């Protein structure tokens, strides 16, 4: 569903991502992990067509994002870390706009269901600039889910959410994966990956340091009394590299 082959991205001489290759199949949830500046957001933004790759191929549901961007984006839902909505539009109008943009016919029932699942029904006619950050995040997610995308990319999905909201989003992500969507989540929250992800990729300084299933990571790094296997893997990989460089 998502295939990345030899993807690299350079910004003015600086390499943000170097020669990255991986794939995510339907039903899988890939967790992108790495310190600040590792290349996580760059990868997500390139995958959803916001920034062009310097080299390599990024394929979404069989469509190359550079060669057939419209077809690729039709199958894509992206939730950025800071959801910037249209401040003069209500919550419902965001859904109506998304439905028209993605050509979703008879969207109303589905939109009502999404509003209900994110506890936004009573905010349907509220202008979004009056919503809290968490609420805006929920609106962005509802919009991304409306056209039932085959690929969903989350950049820090839990920022600004209350515990109830976090539980709701986690449940929604699980349901999407069970329904056959391929999902990538970028976050710094290791517990989120442990709860949700089937696969893990650790990026550091733009390069892939680890890619495998959660089970592989657990068996390779093991769990100690103080930390989980994922935490162990993360610190081993990122600190070893930094020490090595120093």
């Amino acid at each position, binding site marked *: 569903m998502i295939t990345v082959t030899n993807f690299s991205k350079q*910004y003015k001489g*600086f390499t*943000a991502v170097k020669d990255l290759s991986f794939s995510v199949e339907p039903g899988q949830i890939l967790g992108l992990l790495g310190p*600040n*500046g*590792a*290349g*996580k*957001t*760059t990868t997500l*933004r390139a995958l*959803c*067509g*916001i*920034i062009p790759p310097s080299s390599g191929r990024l394929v979404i549901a069989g469509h190359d994002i550079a060669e057939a*961007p*419209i*077809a*690729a*984006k*039709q199958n*894509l839902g*992206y939730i*950025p870390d800071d959801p*910037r*909505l*249209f*401040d*003069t*539009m*209500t*919550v*419902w*109008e965001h859904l*109506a*706009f998304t*439905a*028209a*943009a*993605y*050509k979703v016919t008879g969207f*109303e029932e589905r939109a009502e269901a999404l509003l209900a699942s994110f506890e936004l029904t009573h905010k*349907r*006619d*509220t*202008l979004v*600039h*009056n919503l809290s950050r968490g609420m805006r995040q929920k609106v962005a997610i509802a919009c991304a889910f409306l056209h039932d995308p085959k690929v969903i990319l989350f950049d820090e999905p839990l920022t600004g959410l209350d515990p109830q909201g976090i539980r709701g989003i986690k449940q929604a992500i699980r349901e999407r994966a069970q329904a056959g969507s391929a999902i990538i989540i970028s976050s710094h929250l290791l517990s989120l990956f442990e709860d949700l992800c089937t696969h893990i990729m650790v990026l550091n300084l733009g390069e892939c340091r680890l890619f495998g299933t959660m089970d592989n990571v657990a068996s390779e790094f093991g769990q100690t009394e103080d930390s989980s296997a994922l935490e162990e893997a993360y610190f081993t990989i990122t600190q070893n590299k930094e020490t090595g460089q120093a």
Partner: protein
Amino acid sequence: MDQALFRLLMLRLRGGFRQRLIQLTSLRGLLFFLAFVGIIWLLVATNSSSSDMVSMSDAALNRQALSAQISTFMPISMLAMSLLTVALTTGPTFHFSPAEINFLFTGPFRRRDLIIYKFGAYVAGATLSSALIAVFAQGQTGSALSAFFASLLTITFVQLNSAVIVMTSQTLEGSRLARIRYPVIALLITAAAASIVYAWMAPDRSLFDLLSAFRYSWTGTIILIPYIVFAELFVSSSLSQLAFWGCIALLINTALLRAAIVLDARTTDRALSDNARESSRWERVKQGGSYWATQRAEVRSFRFSPAWGGLGPIAWRQALNVARNSLKVVAVFTGIAACAGPLIAAVGIPLSDPRVLTVIYTFFGFILPRTLVCDFRGDLSRMEIYKTLPIAPWRICAGQLVVQVLVTYVVVLSLIVSITVFEKGFVTSGALVFAAFALPLTVLIYTIENTIHLLFPKKLVPMGRADFEFLGRSLVEFIAKTIVILVAVAASAAVGFATFTTFRTSLVLPALASWITLALIVLLTLVLMQNAFRRFAVAETVD
């Protein structure tokens, strides 16, 4: 002023100065600053060389005539500005930012100290504006120094006068006197409209004659007394006169400041809520929103968005933006355009006069695009959304332009209708030709605006009064836009002329050829805009 507040003021001024210097260290900042200074220098040099070309006696006569005009019309203009302030004011009279509220309102300061601090900050800003005005006004006042002081005292007066008028009306809110606010405004508007109509109907009296008669009448002199002082400041011909009127102006300003402090004590609660509203407005403006956005939290949602092959949702989003953000602005601009016809007729200047054409072009080419923003320029922080949509770039670009162009075209049409009705000798067929050519020209203006914005994205509001990079950039953009428009119009006119000389038919065919040429140029710029959108790089966060 409280010492700590004075120190804060100095630190903030120093910080502002440092920020400008930092702007100058970048190549772009330096270039735009130089462009700004260069254009100002050019204007000043042109002004002085044109006055050098006329003889000494002519120059003296010119100056005398200008002085008479300032004496007559400046007090009336200032009164009109004060009345407009009362009618249109939406924010607090002394605005405190959230940081100032957090630090200063909780600090050991008296309210009057805070007002004086805020006034001090305003005077600091006005000093800079006055320095700029002095460059142009020195020819009138005799020296740059006298022009500077006259400008500074006048600008300060305008701010204090508005503040006191608004605070007085806020203090009276809820009382019986407040009820007469709108009837009085309605009466004044009716009187103004009646004067314009009278001037238009009377063949031997223009609007200026009526205003002049009002200014020198007993009633006019009494009403305009405080404003006359500031007009006299500008036309003082000797140092003693300047000192005399300067002292009176200073006394008026001091009295107004005192009145503002007294009135502020009665309006503190209102001022606090106004401050909160003003701050949220500016936060929205910084993120590309509109200052005039609706204050309501809930509105009735429109259930569906049109698709129109991807063009619909984008245009629909911008239509909602105008309906909820800028309806008042559209109404004001349409009103201004509708008043243009009677005004031009009342003043007695022909439409073909270069001054009238310049004002019309500046209105549609600079003022309106800066104030009414419902396209890519207001969506800088939302470009990610557009980039991820499964819609072809040209459709997104066209969708962004639809509402902006239609709204502007409504304003253009109200101008054309108003001129057709009021301008003698302006025939309907001419109006139709103007209306036909105005559409591609409007599209051209906004396609260029958006293309420049996508190629060189910028903030919509300056960082304070002395943001020379912003000012320089605005001027450079305006000049670039004007050049493209002139080239397009020249090419279109050339094709029309060539058609006319070739076929020697009626004017219909040349006009059609001309229109088609203009439309093709517009399509070409739309392609450029689409490419600019394609290559637009959303902030490249490296994470």
